[in-house]
């Protein structure tokens, strides 16, 4: 049934479309209105499962949280733990020889390849860190280095999805989406979940920050941090033609018409919240423009991070967390930069050279601003790399200078947000192949991260397709040993 309002306008010219529909008995408008009203009433997290809030309004966690925000620094491609945070001197003994108990790898691998990088102990804890990360190493006493991570398969896409979404194959919401679904965000003038990657998407693209079956509002907002100017970074943040003065006039006319509309309806909570949302959009233009603008920082701060995409995006991450953004994910670059199948020494040296100084500066700043205790910083990739060298292929295009993927054992580190500092948790075998002591599956990492945010990973659920879903699905243990 189609109402040809245009043709009958002479009959309906004094009625709004709403009135036409109401008088025609098609009260569909009321259903939509009641949904929005329900949203504003049910912000209580104890009723999270029944009346799922679809807004980004800040809500209380299940129990008192240690962390209020997350900065996830994703070294996509799979950084080698053996060359960074998990020293394996035994590899020197076996250099050039096959190691006993070598596990199946995705490509053909051969003899032991010792790390070309020197390790040194740092801080009072004496945590060993390789020469690739000296700025991060200054913060050794604040780091919880988890050396016994393990994932399911040695491939990028499923491992990325497992790390970010809790499942390697099926379409599931990302961790950032779950966290903003559970907690909302503190600043309604900025997106609650931001994903930054310079120069394009990582492998698996936008799936890494998707909302899947959660409401679209919880999807990550992607920012290409290769761009420098503030108004190129956030989509639709500025009018392409009108300047602020002219747009303000336009906005005020629209707002005046809205107010008139509201007055005619006496009390209409749904309408009021929609008008408010438009006002927030107006404010977001300026607040988001300002938050992403690193030139607002003093020069010496910019220099400590470095005027590179990596420097700028970590500085932006700090600014976002300062302004109440809940979950910030920062990627190394498009594709899979840390995936050093070849020339591990040159490639890892270059990559760490890009990442180390900004990460150190970020940790310095979070400490200086008193934000580290309430911000969980997590560094890692989707898996690690093999202690054995990747062999040349038959085509002869590869030289035996790199490492293959290794999901059996790898390292992530955390700082702040309630974790212990100066601690190495768990261990891989003497060669660094497999997690053997206190193995930590990706789901355990996710369960514990949610715990630090005050969320019970078993209770943060969403009903879809007939059952309750959660980030950790039917897996995951909270590792209380990590808590300070």
């Amino acid at each position, binding site marked *: 049934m189609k109402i040809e*309002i245009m043709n009958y*306008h002479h009959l309906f*010219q*004094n009625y*709004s*479309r*709403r009135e036409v*529909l109401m008088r025609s008995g098609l009260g*569909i*408008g*009321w259903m*939509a*209105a009641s*949904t*929005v009203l329900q*949203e504003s009433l049910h912000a209580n997290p104890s009723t999270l499962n029944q009346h799922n809030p*679809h*807004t*980004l309004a800040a809500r209380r966690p299940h129990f008192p949280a240690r962390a209020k925000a997350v900065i996830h620094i994703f070294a996509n491609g799979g950084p080698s733990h053996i060359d960074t945070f998990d020293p394996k001197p035994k590899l020197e003994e076996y250099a050039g020889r096959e190691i006993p108990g070598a596990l199946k790898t995705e490509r053909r691998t051969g003899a032991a390849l010792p790390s070309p990088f020197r390790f040194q102990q740092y801080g009072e804890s004496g945590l060993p860190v390789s020469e690739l990360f000296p700025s991060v190493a200054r913060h050794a006493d604040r780091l919880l280095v988890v050396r016994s991570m393990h994932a399911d398969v040695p491939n990028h896409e499923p491992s990325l999805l497992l790390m970010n979404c809790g499942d390697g194959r099926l*379409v599931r919401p990302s961790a950032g989406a779950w966290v903003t679904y559970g907690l909302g965000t503190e600043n309604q003038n900025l997106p609650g979940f931001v994903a930054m990657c310079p120069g394009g*998407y990582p492998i*698996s*693209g936008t*799936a890494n920050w998707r909302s*899947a*079956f*959660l*409401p*679209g*509002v919880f999807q990550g907002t992607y920012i290409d941090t290769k761009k420098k100017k503030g108004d190129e970074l956030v*989509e*639709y943040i*500025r*009018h*392409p*033609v*009108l300047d602020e003065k*002219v*747009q303000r*006039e*336009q906005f005020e*006319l629209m707002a005046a*018409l*809205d107010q*008139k*509309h*509201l007055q005619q309806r006496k009390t209409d909570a749904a*309408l009021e*919240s*929609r*008008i408010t*949302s*438009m006002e*927030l*959009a*107006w*404010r*977001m*233009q300026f607040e988001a423009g300002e938050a992403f603008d690193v030139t607002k920082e003093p020069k010496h701060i910019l220099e400590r991070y470095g005027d590179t995409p990596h420097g700028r995006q970590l500085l932006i991450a700090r600014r976002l967390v300062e302004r109440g953004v809940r979950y910030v994910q920062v990627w190394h670059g498009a594709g899979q930069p840390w995936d050093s199948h070849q020339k591990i020494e040159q490639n890892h040296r270059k990559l760490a050279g890009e990442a180390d100084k900004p990460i150190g500066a970020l940790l310095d700043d979070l400490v200086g601003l008193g934000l580290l205790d309430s911000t969980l910083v997590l560094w890692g990739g989707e898996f690690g790399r093999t202690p054995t060298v990747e062999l040349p292929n038959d085509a002869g295009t590869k030289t035996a200078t790199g490492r293959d993927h290794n999901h059996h054992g790898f390292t992530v580190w955390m700082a702040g947000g309630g974790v212990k500092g100066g601690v190495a948790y768990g261990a891989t075998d003497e060669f660094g192949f497999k997690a053997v002591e206190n193995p930590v599956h990706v789901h355990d990492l996710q369960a514990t991260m949610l715990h630090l945010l005050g969320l019970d990973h078993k209770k943060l659920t969403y009903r879809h*397709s007939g059952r309750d879903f959660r980030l950790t699905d039917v897996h995951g243990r909270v590792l209380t040993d990590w808590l300070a």
Partner: protein
Amino acid sequence: MAAGTLELDARGGPGMNPLDPDNGARRTLYSWVDRQDVPGVLRTFDIANLDTTVHVRSTTLVPQQGLVMLNSPLVIDAAKKVANRLSDESNTQSRIEQLWRIVFARSPQRDEIQMVQEWIEKSEGLSSDDFGVWPQLAQALMSTAEFQYVD
């Protein structure tokens, strides 16, 4: 619809890019969309999850939706097309009445006409050629709650 470009009669045929201003004016049923890279505009307005069957879409209310209305090329292009539908006559009041009928399907009230006339006087000096007073007005009207929400 207000831009007068929605093609309801074209059925079947190949899909199109929904954001293409020249060719995208069909129902999203006919969209060609990359599931891995859903356009932000569609995401912002709660397009159904393209990876599975969805019996009911979620409804959200977020400022990013407002940003689309304020600044996106899609809306700005639509505003220009709405303004182009206005007849060439120079009588401001009848142009306002015509715009109201296109966007709101009703006649403007007296005080609304006055509000807009005052606004036009203020804005005439400030506007650029590329996006003049009438497209700006069309965009403002399309951003109001009355236009966007049927209830």
